[in-house]
């Protein structure tokens, strides 16, 4: 608005206000009455609902197609490899001293440590990421070479070993060398040395005195210690028997953004259909039980549970198919409609989140794969809810809200804008009429003032088929008093709410792709030139 004023008054400021001395009264000020369009915009359904969610039929009628993941169970729920440590400690079994020549080998230690995987019995594990750290401590008066081999491990088909040199040390002043190895891409056979175990992580530690040294006298106070730690292991692939166990998922919430802009009101839809599709990417049979699926509107505090035979009943999914390096998920789906469920009320609740509680039972029939359950890093059990809703509806006081921070000229202390009238000129092609509510909010979203709006946006002219034949033009006005203007400067947040009602409250009216609402905001204000200074 300031620029409109300036554009009109620029000549005057230059021409009439440029000369002479000015006293303490400041620059000359005078009030002008300005009338100018401010904002020009239009509203289509695409402004309310993303294009990707709308499907236009051959007759131009719109259908809403909304997909959301209801829940997903991923690798970290199905399989977690804990950090695992292995300690090797060599101490002379007699008091000594006993001389060990240069290059002498201390007794080799070979061990198979069991990974703590609870009910999971793994035979093979491929690692996507993780680290092996070996800390070597030497108290012998000779340098040593430590070799930490992983007999069950391969990397690109080659055996895996970690080797490092530790300088000479003493019991009072041991020397220390840390060794690390990135385990990404490593494969481990977890069946142990005799291939008859599960979860077995084999290791072999060899210590050799420095072949170029002078040897050393070793007593039972001298020792060599190696601590190997596997950390942050993320599997890329695992095979074995995953056990017969039940994972509980939820109660948890998943956000629904479909009705984000709607803050209040009732929506009566003509028809809705929903498809629930569950996919199993895990190489193990599953039995899923949905305990609850609830539509929650946190703005109104209303909850509508889904009632359908699937809720509370077991859903069996066969295992995924291993394609050797990848997998093919299996799927299960069912359709919910107003005839077999409460899906209509579920949607009409305008949920902003869905609450669910689900049990997943692995291998309900036991180890029928003979230890060949598998999963990949990408494996997941996922439930997708797909909502298909032809946009034929009855809206009752359906409220859409937006909060704007107007870029007003001047400041709270000095502003040229004193009072005026905002006119909203609407050309409405929707079968809705709309009331506008303007409120001034403080920083805590509390209403500190309201600007009354006179008039309402009239509905488009609806023919007997429920289609809008002609857009209708209407004008709403909002008068801004000086007090309201001051308030707007003090709390510059304006909440604009539009309350929609369909023209015919007894009939579901279709929404067509070409419907639009053209809006223009015109300001007629009193503005004090130089009042912003």
């Amino acid at each position, binding site marked *: 608005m300031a*620029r409109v004023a300036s554009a009109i008054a620029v000549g005057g400021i230059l021409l009439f206000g440029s*000369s*002479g001395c000015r006293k303490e009264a400041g620059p*000359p000020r005078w009030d002008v009455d300005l*009338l100018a*369009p*401010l904002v020009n*915009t239009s509203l289509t359904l695409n402004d309310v609902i993303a294009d990707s969610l709308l499907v236009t039929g051959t007759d131009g009628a719109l259908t809403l197609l909304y997909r959301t993941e209801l829940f997903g169970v991923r690798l970290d729920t199905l399989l977690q490899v804990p950090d695992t440590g292995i300690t090797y400690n060599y101490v002379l079994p007699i008091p000594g001293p006993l001389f060990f020549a240069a290059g002498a080998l201390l007794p080799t230690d070979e061990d198979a440590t069991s990974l703590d995987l609870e009910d999971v019995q793994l035979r093979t594990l491929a690692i996507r990421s993780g680290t092996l750290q070996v800390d070597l401590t030497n108290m012998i008066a000779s340098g040593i070479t430590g070799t930490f081999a992983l007999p069950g491990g391969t990397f690109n088909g080659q055996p895996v070993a970690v080797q490092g040199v530790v300088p000479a040390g003493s019991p009072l002043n041991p020397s220390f060398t840390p060794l690390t190895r990135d385990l990404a891409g490593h494969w481990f056979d977890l069946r142990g040395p005799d291939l008859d175990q599960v979860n077995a992580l084999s290791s072999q530690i060899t210590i050799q005195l420095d072949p170029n040294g002078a040897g050393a006298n070793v007593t039972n106070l001298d020792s060599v210690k190696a601590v190997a730690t596997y950390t942050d292991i993320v599997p890329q692939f695992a095979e074995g028997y995953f056990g017969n166990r039940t994972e509980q998922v939820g109660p948890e919430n998943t956000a629904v953004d479909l009705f984000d802009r709607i803050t209040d009101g009732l929506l009566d839809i003509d028809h809705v259909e929903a498809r629930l599709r569950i996919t199993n990417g895990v190489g193990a049979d599953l039995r899923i039980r949905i305990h609850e699926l609830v539509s929650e509107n946190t703005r109104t505090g209303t909850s509508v549970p889904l009632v359908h035979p699937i809720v509370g009943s077991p859903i069996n999914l066969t295992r995924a198919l291993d394609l050797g390096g990848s997998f093919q998920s299996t799927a299960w789906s069912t359709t919910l409609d107003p005839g077999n469920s409460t899906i209509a009320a579920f949607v009409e609740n305008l949920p902003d989140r869905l609450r669910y509680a689900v049990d997943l039972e692995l291998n309900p029939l036991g180890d029928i794969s003979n230890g060949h359950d598998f999963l990949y890093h990408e494996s997941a059990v996922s439930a997708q809810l797909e909502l298909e809703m032809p946009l034929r509806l009855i809206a009752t006081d359906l409220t859409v809200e937006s909060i704007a921070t107007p*870029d007003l000229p001047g400041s709270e202390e000095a502003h040229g804008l004193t009072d005026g009238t905002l006119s909203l000129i609407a050309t409405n092609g929707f079968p809705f009429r709309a009331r506008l509510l303007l409120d001034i909010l403080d920083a805590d979203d509390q209403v500190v003032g309201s600007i009354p709006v006179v008039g309402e946006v009239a509905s488009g002219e609806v023919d007997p088929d429920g289609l809008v034949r002609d857009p209708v033009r209407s004008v709403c006005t909002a008068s801004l008093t000086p007090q309201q203007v001051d308030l707007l400067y003090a709390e510059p947040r304006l909440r604009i709410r539009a309350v929609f009602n369909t023209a015919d409250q007894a009939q579901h009216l279709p929404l067509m792709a070409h419907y639009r609402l053209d809006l223009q905001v015109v300001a007629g204000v009193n503005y004090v030139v130089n009042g912003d200074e």
Partner: protein
Amino acid sequence: MSERLPALALALALPLLSFAQDLLPTGDAAQRDRVEVRGGFAYDANTLLNELVLDLTQGGFVERDVRERSQAALRSNNRLGQVLQLGVHAVFGDSILGRAGLKVMISATHQDQAGLRFRPDVYALTFFGNAGFAGQRADLSGSAFEQQRYQTLGAGLYHARSGSWVRLDVVKGQSWTAVHLEDATLFTAADGTRIDLRLHGTYRSSDTARSDLGAFNGLGAAISFAQRFSLPTRNGSAAHRITLGAQDLGAVRWNDRALRSGPDTAFTYDGITVDDVFDLTGAITGEEQLLDTFGVRPSAAAAWRLLPLHAWAEHSVTWPTGWRMDLRIAQRALPGFIPFAQLTGWRRFGAQAVGISAQYGGFGGLRAGVHGRFRITRWLGAELQLPNLYGLTGPRARGLAAQVGLVFIP
């Protein structure tokens, strides 16, 4: 208001057209070395009332009735302008390069000159806004404004016998603003949904970062001169003298930070287009968008501009009886300034002279004034001119003009 008016006039005002005249009473020898100090301000308007201009000058809120009274006085073409000039001029010496009677002239001045012509719709839009034009077209065409502030430092030659002189000045440009609306109309729809703007014009300005007295935004040069001819006379008859003169015939090159915008466009404005109706934040004023929409975003480049040349011709007739008559025609290169004519009658009383004048044109209409030139001591002369007595009669008069000057004769 009524107290402020004469006070301001007496304190600051100078006549528009006095600067090429002799300060000394008629008949004093022009051959004398001297130093002249001049300063003052003059304002004239053909329609606007002084009360409005004074309110604008002094700041504070300009009441609606004040604006309405001036609006009621507007004509189809309205003019106003101001000239503020302060200067020191010295004339001395006996000869230059062996030529007797040639003196050296040295001069330093400060100039602040502005002129405006405008149509009534410009005034109405400026002081009352466009709401009153709902459903109508405001015609702004032909309106123009220019203001130049600059300082000069120069030297020249003064011919003692004839009073002719020529001077070359270096000009320091302080600030410059010029607006010219060649063809401009503004239509406001009755319901405010549309504004149609036709805009063909120019806006020019010196660097806006600094415009105070110390600002050095341009550099130029100017020549000023006055050539006097005495017509042959018989003994005992009246003496006729004709003067042709020009002041500040020159130009300033304003530096490369000078701004220029020359829109030649016609468009309809129906508000800033907002793509997302749910995101109006920042869209209420849309300052940057408006600048682009109106196509008035200026660009920076150096620019040459002529100084507001002041040219005049004067015919003086001096009778042996002590009477004198001056007829002066002048023109200034400023918007709103029309040819100016002034007729002054002088009567000499010893070393003093008083006169009355009638004048028309310039930035104002018909007006009358009084003039006085006084020899206070042997070495000090003074001048007081009040060429617009009507302007001093009250806030609802038009124009303010007075001049004070001192001449020191060693």
